[in-house]
């Protein structure tokens, strides 16, 4: 039971980070129907900038929490600048082009950002300075650290703040109006260029925080970290119903749980030696041996199995509405 509870805690922590990244995908998709594949790279740049700042500040002996906050405070504007530049230079000129063009551009932007990071931060795995001494609490046999609690609190806090922004403020109303129909929103006096840019800025800021959380939680950052994280968050957004903000939150958390439970239990279920009918036929099982068909290295596969299943059985996602193809 404590193992199961622990896997739930692991899944929730990873899932809440996925959810925050997924918000960046879903907001942009909701407003301009573009899957911004470069969003994972924005998250990576957030982690890298925070790494550089934290590393530079450690020798000055500031309190650890202040250092991390300063790192985040630097990562957010850098990521927002990257997000804005991306929209202004790569996507805005293509806004009226066929939808395939911005999609391919997004992949190109992703590759460019990754290689810029390679030039700046080298191809090595960077180790985040371990400055936060994290306390571990045991709850019913499951360990939860202060860092995990902080990640959960920050992620859910940001999701709540975003929900308020989208549903309770004039900017949020303008965003929803632009999402429904950009031409009519424009006629109603909404500056849609500003609204779209704001969407990118908010998504990038969330991504920056997610990058810092990811970096401090796992203790490492590398220029390739954005691609797999981005793909998983994208799967989470699709699972929840792409374009749907509560859907991205739900999808992220669910995906984290599926991954943790899947990786935790797949080895047991596919250990052929635990099935008596098969054990006698496999030579490896003799003398307490094991023959595991799929190990926990298939952890990353679960995100994509979920993606395929959703696309086949419920293309609009869990919370998405069934809408006809846009003309």
């Amino acid at each position: 039971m404590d193992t199961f509870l622990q896997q739930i805690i692991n899944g929730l922590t990873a899932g809440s980070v996925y959810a925050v990244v997924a918000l960046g995908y879903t907001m942009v998709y909701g407003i301009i129907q573009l899957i911004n594949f470069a969003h994972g790279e924005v998250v990576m740049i957030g982690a890298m900038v925070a790494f550089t700042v934290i590393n530079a500040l450690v020798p000055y002996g500031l309190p650890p929490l202040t250092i991390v906050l300063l790192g985040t405070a630097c990562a957010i504007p850098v990521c927002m600048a990257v997000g804005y530049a991306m929209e202004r230079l790569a996507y805005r000129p293509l806004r009226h082009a066929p939808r395939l063009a911005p999609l391919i551009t997004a992949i190109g932007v992703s590759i460019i950002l990754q290689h810029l990071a390679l030039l700046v931060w080298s191809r090595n795995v960077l180790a985040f300075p371990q400055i936060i001494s994290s306390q571990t609490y045991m709850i019913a046999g499951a360990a939860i650290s202060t860092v995990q609690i902080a990640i959960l609190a920050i992620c859910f806090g940001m999701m709540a703040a975003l929900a308020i922004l989208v549903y309770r403020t004039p900017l949020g109303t303008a965003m929803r109006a632009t999402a429904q129909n950009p031409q009519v929103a424009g006629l109603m006096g909404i500056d849609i260029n500003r609204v779209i840019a704001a969407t990118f800025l908010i998504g990038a800021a969330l991504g920056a925080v997610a990058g810092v959380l990811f970096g401090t939680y796992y203790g490492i950052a590398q220029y390739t970290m954005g691609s797999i994280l981005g793909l998983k968050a994208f799967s989470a957004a699709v699972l929840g119903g792409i374009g749907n903000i509560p859907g991205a939150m739900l999808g992220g958390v669910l995906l984290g749980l599926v991954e943790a439970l899947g990786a935790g239990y797949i080895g047991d279920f596919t250990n052929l030696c635990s099935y008596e009918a098969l054990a006698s036929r496999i030579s490896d099982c003799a003398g307490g041996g094991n023959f595991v068909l799929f190990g926990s290295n298939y952890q990353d596969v679960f995100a994509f199995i979920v993606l395929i299943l959703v696309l086949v059985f419920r293309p609009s996602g869990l919370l998405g509405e069934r809408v006809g193809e846009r003309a």
Partner: protein
Amino acid sequence: MKNIKLALCVAAALALAACSKEAPKSGAQGGAEVKIGHVAPLTGGIAHLGKDNENGARLAVEEANAAGTKIGGKDVKFVLVAEDDQADPKVGTTVAQKLVDAGVVGVVGHLNSGTSIPASPIYNQAGIPVISGSATNPKLTEQGFKNQFRVVGRDDQQGPAIASYLATEKKPKLVAVIDDATAYGEGIANEVEKTLRAAQIKVLPREKGTDKTTDWKAVLTKLRGQNPDAVFYGGMDATGGPLLKQGRELGMKAVFSFGDGACTDKMKELAGDAAEGLLCSQAGIPPQAASKKFLDAYKKRFNMDPILYAPFTYDAANLLIEAMKQAGSTDPKTYLPALQKISFTGATGNIQFDEKGDRKDAEMTIFTMKGGKIEPIAVIKSGKTMSYEEFLKSAK
């Protein structure tokens, strides 16, 4: 006037030609020049290790020259031809061909397994003996080349070494083995599991990650439920560090052990305080454990301590020279049999080769993380474990 100029030119050219012909003789103090090649990356990320290797070989050559070595009764002068392979397999084959064309009679190198393996057929075709002081991939000596040797241990001797150390010193009842699903990680993990099972220790079903895994929590949570006394991970430090850190965060008390891929000081950076007390193995012996004679000579010549593999390349160069002395010839074909049968005591102890060209009874060293640095604690040789202090005493 024109004719005089021409005559002068011709005279000058002749003089130059004469000079260049005479140069080797005068430089050789009356002896013939014998070229020994050395290859290691001298540029790029591990250039410092490459230079260290080269220094070891250079020291051996200079000592042999200073001692006035005679081969077959004739004076000879050894010349080290040092090449840079940039740790790049493609460049490795190019410089190998370059050395063959330059007429070297033996080669010390290369530093990396990744460059040694593609270069080996070139040396084999030319029949030139090659001794690596640092390439540990088993494949290097599994190609059936009679001219390929190494003075350092193999990766597949490392698994049994760390496993037997775990078994005898930590006496675990239950061990979890994890690997990163790469050829290296899986290979070493398999050897560890085999050795542990042979020692009647129970091993949990193998867990796997990838060489890019950052989240090990699912795997570790599952293992924690089974409460192993020790964990072995076959993989690199970039994934091993987070593994160790997350294991401790989950409250695992097991001993964590690693192969040489994660036997670096970087584990401290990656895992923080959790790295303290980890166990890991490396092929060979730490340079400080080399003979005092070598350490003093190296320090005197290069004004620094050897970094990693210099004692091994020093021995490799000396082995080539010794085999030539015993055979009384610098012809690779003639001295190769002497090299295969050699028994030589060098800076890293006694060296003999088995039929594959691997060193017999190669040492493996076990390290632990102490105060943020990995420190040697034990040396394993021919299945026997001795503490590092004992080994140092016996070596001196």
